[in-house]
């Protein structure tokens, strides 16, 4: 069940009652203004409505005629804290560190925002990361827990990925890389961090 579907009360085409994840198959569906349809598989929702303004989710229950859909403004998908943090990154001027740091690239922020919205709308209990600026105008997305750290670091090429596993006071470091628009791999890294994947996603797709 997608997190966004649990949120009140904005819906245009109906309402989806919270149900166990496996009870719903979620897909994208074109709207009146026209978007393509994508299969999203069990328990996931992703894709964007026209003009990037809305996230559209259509829940398709197994029973015929029970389809329900809901339209969420993008600003509802992420928490005010995370959205505000991303907005603050947009406002950082060149030299924000008091030295020679570059202003953050709007495209880097937009890409990060998009992938976080996708994760947030896919997982009911999505854990929001911290997004921090880098001196070179890029940014870094970080998730931390007692035992695991995941960092997605923006670079001029593919994003650099670091996982850290803490055991008995020591850290084991794992590395990888991905294109930020590579949704399946980003999802795998996130699932590794929440411990639903036990093996580090090392394959660059």
């Amino acid at each position, binding site marked *: 069940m997608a997190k966004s579907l649990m949120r009140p009360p904005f819906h245009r085409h109906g309402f989806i009652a919270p149900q166990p994840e496996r009870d719903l198959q979620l897909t994208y569906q074109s709207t009146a203004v026209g978007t393509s349809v994508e299969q999203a598989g069990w328990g996931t929702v992703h894709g964007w409505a026209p003009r990037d303004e809305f996230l559209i989710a259509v829940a398709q229950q197994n029973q015929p005629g029970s389809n329900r859909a809901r339209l969420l403004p993008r600003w509802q998908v992420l928490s005010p804290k995370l959205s505000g*943090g991303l907005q*603050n*990154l947009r406002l*950082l001027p060149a030299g*924000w*560190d*008091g*030295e020679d740091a570059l202003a953050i690239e709007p495209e880097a922020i937009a890409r990060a925002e998009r992938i976080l919205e996708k994760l947030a709308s896919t997982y009911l209990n999505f854990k929001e990361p*911290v997004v*921090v*600026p*880098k*001196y*070179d105008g890029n*940014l*870094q997305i*970080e998730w*931390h827990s007692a035992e695991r*750290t995941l*960092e997605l*670091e923006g670079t001029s090429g593919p994003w*650099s990925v*670091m996982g*850290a596993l803490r055991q008995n006071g020591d*850290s084991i*470091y794992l*590395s990888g890389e991905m294109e930020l628009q590579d949704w399946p791999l980003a999802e795998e890294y996130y699932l590794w961090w929440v411990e639903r994947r036990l093996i580090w996603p090392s394959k660059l797709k």
Partner: protein
Amino acid sequence: MAFEIEVIPDADRLFHHVHKSMWIETEHRPSSACFKKRPALSVNWLKYSCVVHTRRPNSHAVISLFAGDCRKLSQAVVHSPLESDAPNGPNQAHADIKGEKPQSTADQMAKLALTEWLAA
């Protein structure tokens, strides 16, 4: 008059200011991104500096690292005082932490950082 270049002992602390956007509240420490400065991370050597001297108007925290800890992470710690005609000079305490800082190194530096001052 040029400042003398000295060797920074392993046991000495190096101060660095942290911008608010780089502070991880839940971890009570800076992000590893704070240490990924190229070609070198500017710090102030304790011998000629202090927290107040290192703090800036936009600082959220001032942290310190031991020079020896940095060297153990394959970093060179070099005293590089700024003369009066340099940007942000004069600063006799200025030093550089030089070396490649892959994510694992930056992460270790973030975890080794001691919080010396934190904005209220």
